[in-house]
């Protein structure tokens, strides 16, 4: 019926299990959370509805129940380098990316959608964003990204992939469309951009060039203090060792 993959099997067990995992092991500092209520709120955002008519604010209750503050100077935004970000963030110890927050952690890598006039999840297929923008997963991440940006403070870090053809700073993209517009100027002291190449990958973009330059200009125009660092230099050093 739809072009995308169906709902992840055992979605409920995964979401609830990850919730307890997060509050008990990953980040006990967030305190007590009602994981069953969090699952219910998550589910009610999209079940029994037209799967092409799910809006970001349908997840409002879910966000309210799973929300916790993000420590200042720990926010890490990124594009096109999920694996590197996962290793970079050190499971929330060095930085707290969206996937290191409770609301991001429970949904990371999962897929889901419901059906109109049925309380069941659709395990067969789900709409892609090309088929309709207002689908359950897309709206979730839009809401989660906006929330994450709104509550970020201090020094903000952005990790971009310098090996990607088509731009380290993609437009349209989550960072461009849902995160930058939701940053709170009075809470952000500085924005630090890192352009990192894939390990043993090509160096296509760097600070001050192409899309990175576009990003730097946009943020400066918005009034932010911006710095940019390339890791390409590290590769040069290692090559020099030969």
């Amino acid at each position, binding site marked *: 019926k739809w072009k995308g993959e169906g709902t992840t099997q055992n979605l409920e067990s995964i979401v609830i*299990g990850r919730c307890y*995992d997060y509050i008990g*092991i990953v980040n006990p500092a967030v305190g007590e959370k009602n994981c069953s209520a969090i699952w219910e709120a998550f589910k009610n955002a999209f079940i029994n509805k037209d799967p092409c008519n799910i809006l970001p604010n349908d997840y409002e209750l879910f966000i309210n129940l799973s929300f916790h503050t993000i420590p200042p100077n720990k926010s890490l935004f990124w594009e096109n380098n999920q694996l590197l970000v996962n*290793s970079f963030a050190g499971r929330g110890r060095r930085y707290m990316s969206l996937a290191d927050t409770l609301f991001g952690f429970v949904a990371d890598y999962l897929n889901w959608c419901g059906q109109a006039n049925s309380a069941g999840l659709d395990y067969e297929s789900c709409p892609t964003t090309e088929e309709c923008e207002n689908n359950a997963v897309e709206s979730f991440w839009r809401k989660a990204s906006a929330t994450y940006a709104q509550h970020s403070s201090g020094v903000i870090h952005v990790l971009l992939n310098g090996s990607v053809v088509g731009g380290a700073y993609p437009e349209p993209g989550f960072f461009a469309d849902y995160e930058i517009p939701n940053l709170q100027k009075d809470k952000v002291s500085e924005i630090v951009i890192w352009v990192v190449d894939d*390990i043993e990958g090509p160096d296509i973009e760097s600070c001050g060039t192409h899309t990175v330059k576009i990003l730097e200009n946009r943020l400066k125009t918005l009034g932010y203090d911006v710095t940019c660092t390339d*890791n390409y*230099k590290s590769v040069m050093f*290692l090559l020099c060792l030969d």
Partner: protein
Amino acid sequence: MPFRPGSARARQRSVLLVGSAVLLAALVLAVVLASLLTHEKQEVGPKMMKWKDRGTTKNLREVILGRCYSYVMARYPELGDKDCLKIWESLKQAFIYKNPCNITSEDYEPLMELATHPIPCNKSLLWSKTSDLVHRYTKSNQNFLTLEDTLLGYMADRVSWCGDPSDPGINYESCPKRSECESNPSSVFWKMASKLFAEAACGVVQVMLNGSVEAGAFRSSSIFGSIEIFNLNPDKVTEVHIWLMHDIGGPQSESCSGHSIKRLKSILEERNFKITCVDNYRPVQLLQCVHNPDHTDCRLCTNTT
């Protein structure tokens, strides 16, 4: 002598009285003796044993199930035949209601059977004293698998559990430390899982060791040094590649030519493995440098050679 009829009845009564008293006394004595003989050191009401380490993880069942489904459904769908409920049950049966100082590898056999899966050749990554770095590496480069990247290790990582003979059979307050008793649920689990992980390795095996540790990069007392190297199968494993990493800006306590590495090499060579060793394996060092881009060890070199 002539009978006095009243005294016969009186004698009967006193015989009865004395008899009952004796019987009563005997009963009391019997009860006292019985309780003395069977008396055990039991507190009033069931109480759990107290240990020095943290107790069983709260909501253990939900956490384990969530991780199992996460791993199987979301990450490695080719393992779709794994039954997470059965896996949870087998884990629970391994320790529930048991004395946590008395756990054996037999207790974990059913779990190990259900949860182990084959590892592709050339992908096994062993490690010692490099937990943070090695797991950051496998998160960014999914070409290698540590034990904690297999289903068994993924479920158990940073989780704790132990049982107790009294209800409800699981001790959420505390669990034994290794110093309190060796055969505790956690130590037995990890030793067994490590052994199986080493046994499953084939082709080239990688090992990440820490050259900035004072006590030496290779230690015979570590799980790597005491279990894993002895369970690599010489019929399946062709080579062992050692990556000896130094902390950026950390001491260079040992390198590939160091004492403990020589010892490791001789142990492995004796078992017919070909060994190579590299100081600061480049892709891993690049990952370290991403976090320390301004450190002198990571800066652009000034002299061109």
